[in-house]
């Protein structure tokens, strides 16, 4: 352990490429990130990948089972729902809403939480008191109930879903960033920067933020998984986007209703939803390992 203490702190100039290499060495990052990348491509190229129009109804072809079961129709690989809409095409189009919510909601929640967390952790005093008390009150609400309440207040639609997730989950980032900032602010390099006479804002953004970033990046990935679930829950309850936009949660709700006639309507989006959440978790876990210099050793 003695040589560890003697190792000079990582030089930031080579930090980026070093971090990138560490990330690519982590199998969890490759598997989780690879799956997310694949989903991203599916979402972008949905119109070319989907074999059918996801909204086209054909009551003559309702409740068709997936390929391989008796009574299928060629071209409907995962079967159809009770309205005769192609399940595979709907799952493919569903990635669009899921990923939009994941990236935008997690990004905005991270932005607000980080700004408030940096302020509370670095400046302390009454700013810290106000922000910490706010976080405490926020945590007294059951999140699922709060999100349903918020969407009911804001009206349904993807903007409301994103706003609800941001309003509820900024506290996750705020708490972690605040604690991390407090820890970093006591480090020698911050003291040194102060002694040199750097302005406080410069120290906060150029010195402390890059060192908080690894924890933050991992947290964003986990939050994306949470956002995907929350969107699915709100769609399931019928409070997300309008019912003619295909979503995984909406399909799950429909599948739950016709479970005895067409279980596959529930299985397909559920499996994809689960895989997506797992991928975001693995990615987050892998990033945390790869970017944390202590764990890396």
């Amino acid at each position, binding site marked *: 352990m003695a040589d560890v203490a003697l190792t000079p702190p990582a030089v930031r100039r080579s930090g980026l490429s070093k971090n990138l290499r560490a990330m690519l060495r982590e199998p969890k990052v490759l598997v989780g990130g690879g799956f997310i990348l694949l989903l991203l491509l599916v979402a972008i190229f949905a119109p070319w990948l989907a074999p059918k129009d996801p909204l086209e109804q054909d009551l003559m072809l309702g409740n068709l089972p997936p390929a391989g079961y008796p009574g299928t129709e060629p071209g409907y690989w995962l079967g159809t729902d009770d309205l005769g809409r192609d399940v595979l095409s709907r799952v493919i189009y569903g990635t669009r809403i899921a990923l939009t919510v994941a990236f935008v909601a997690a990004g905005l929640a991270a932005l607000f939480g980080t700004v408030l967390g940096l302020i509370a952790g670095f400046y302390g005093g009454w700013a810290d008191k106000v922000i910490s008390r706010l976080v*405490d*009150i926020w945590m*007294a*609400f*059951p*999140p*699922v*109930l709060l999100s*349903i*309440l*918020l969407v*009911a*207040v804001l*009206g349904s639609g993807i903007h409301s879903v994103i706003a609800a997730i941001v309003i509820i989950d900024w506290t996750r980032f705020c708490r972690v960033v605040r604690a991390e900032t407090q820890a970093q602010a006591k480090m020698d390099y911050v003291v040194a920067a102060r002694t040199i006479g750097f302005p406080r804002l410069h120290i906060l953004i150029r010195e402390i933020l890059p060192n908080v970033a690894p924890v933050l990046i991992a947290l964003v990935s986990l939050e994306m998984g949470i956002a995907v*679930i929350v969107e*699915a*829950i709100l769609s*399931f*309850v*019928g*409070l997300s986007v309008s019912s003619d936009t295909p979503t995984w949660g909406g399909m*799950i709700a429909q599948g*739950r209703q016709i*479970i*005895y006639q067409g*279980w596959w309507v*529930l*299985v397909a989006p*559920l499996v994809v*939803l*689960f895989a997506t*959440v*797992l991928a975001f*978790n693995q990615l987050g876990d892998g990033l945390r390992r790869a970017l944390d210099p202590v764990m890396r050793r």
Partner: protein
Amino acid sequence: MIAVSILKRLLMAAITLFGVAVIVFVLLRVVPGDPIAMMISPGASPESIAALRAQYGLDASLPVQFLVWLKAVVVGDFGTSISLRRNVLELLAERLPATLELAIVALLVAVVLGGAVAVLGTLLRRTPGEPVVDTVNGLCLAVPDFVWALALVLVLGVAFPVFPLSGRINPGVQVDFATPFYLIESLVTLRFKVFADVAAHMVMPVLALGLPLAAIITRVLKEALLEAMVQDYILLARLKGMSSLRLVLQEALRNAIGPTIALTGVQFTFLIGGTVIVERIFAYPGIGNMAIDAVINRDLPLIQGLVLVFGALFIVINLLVDMLVVAFNPRLRHG
């Protein structure tokens, strides 16, 4: 000393609850969409709409509405549900026991299962069994209650239909209950057939709520147990010839349990939050399921009552956990 700190906590709890009430009240009054519009027939005259509005107190100014509501709540009057046209307190008293039974059974299952797997993982340390336990547990950690519930619907409800898919009791079972605590009442009055039916309806929602919590308990408790197992007093007990199982259960567990209790308490509040969606999936008649309907119907009095109940539950649980942690930690008890 302890009495003072408990009083202080109670006061803080009351302030938090008041804050929750204010926020919910204000939030709901800015809702676009008129609750009265949802209950009138299309041809209603403006006079009758105004009369309805006055009946529910919606014609007064916001602060006045809040004061009227607060005054009523303090004496136990939560108003009348707009969508169900029944007393809110009565509705809550009917539905809350169903949710409490569900949540507490789920907690018990999680503690027993999570604890057992943690002990198993500790006994299996440095054997090929340990990574198996860790991997399965890691997978369980990643699955949220929403996904568990639906997976259970598919496996135990449809593929192998062992348990009923929805409701709290088979409508064919004709029994009168004296209390809304069906599970406990049927057990106490020794009506085992009824008990079995109520229990069967609870299996899937309980598992959906309990399994994620069990996974968390396993992870934290196992870590604490492994840490305790390398302490000197364990080595001494081992040298005295105590068996591994007794070592874990009698010596290590006692010292490792503190952090697990604190965490279980926090997670139990999340479990109660999870009842909202899990009850929905299994059409279980608790307050969570009712909350979703209340929000969809913009039933303001009912939503306010429900949110207060959820807030109060959270606060009570947090208080209980703090007391339990002190009770299990002698150092804090005397501090």
